[in-house]
């Protein structure tokens, strides 16, 4: 069966510090991978998605970047965090079935920038 893990689960970082959130998928190959950010009690904002190794599409201009060094590894990074980067970050994978396909989410990473 497929599983997805992301870490760390929680982190508190000062403004201006770097960030690295990692996500790995097991049990599937060549998945579409996604990073979403969620404000409390609100919808998910798509940040990045990847259809293959080294292929990254950015949805919104921001202080963050993403990389996919291996087929089942997706990394979210920042060189210098801003207060506005605080939020709940969710990694997800998806196997497309035509125009559908369920998103499977990781456990989430809660980032607080002080």
């Amino acid at each position, binding site marked *: 069966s497929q599983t997805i893990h992301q870490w760390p689960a929680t982190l508190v970082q000062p403004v201006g510090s770097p960030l690295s959130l990692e996500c790995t998928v097991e049990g599937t190959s060549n998945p579409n991978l996604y990073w*979403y950010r969620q404000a409390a*009690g609100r*919808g*998910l904002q798509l940040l990045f998605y990847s259809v293959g190794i080294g292929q990254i599409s950015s949805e919104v201009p921001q202080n963050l970047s993403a990389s996919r060094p291996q087929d089942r590894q997706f990394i979210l990074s920042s060189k210098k965090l801003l207060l506005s980067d605080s939020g709940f970050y969710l990694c997800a994978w998806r196997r497309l079935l035509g125009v559908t396909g*369920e998103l499977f989410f990781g456990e989430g990473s809660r980032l607080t920038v002080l």
Partner: protein
Amino acid sequence: TQLLEQSPQFLSIQEGENLTVYCNSSSVFSSLQWYRQEPGEGPVLLVTVVTGGEVKKLKRLTFQFGDARKDSSLHITAAQTGDTGLYLCAGARGGGATNKLIFGTGTLLAVQP
């Protein structure tokens, strides 16, 4: 720009009541999904609708996709405390491998005993 607007944003009801959540857009989607999310966890898929006008039932939950594939609704009959959570609609856009899901603004439902 938020493509999918959900209403209401918050809803607090008593157990046994009925409710409807709406998901509206000016854009056409190739498919639409509804997810439910509990605090501190990722969303979990409830249903996928693909055809305009399609209606799907999942026990006490009824989902409908608009005829023009721009909107959807979720109706819950006789709500239970276990229905409490954040409900999210998500529309699929783009073709082929670049197909991606755009999430709605969310509806936070609290069912009181």
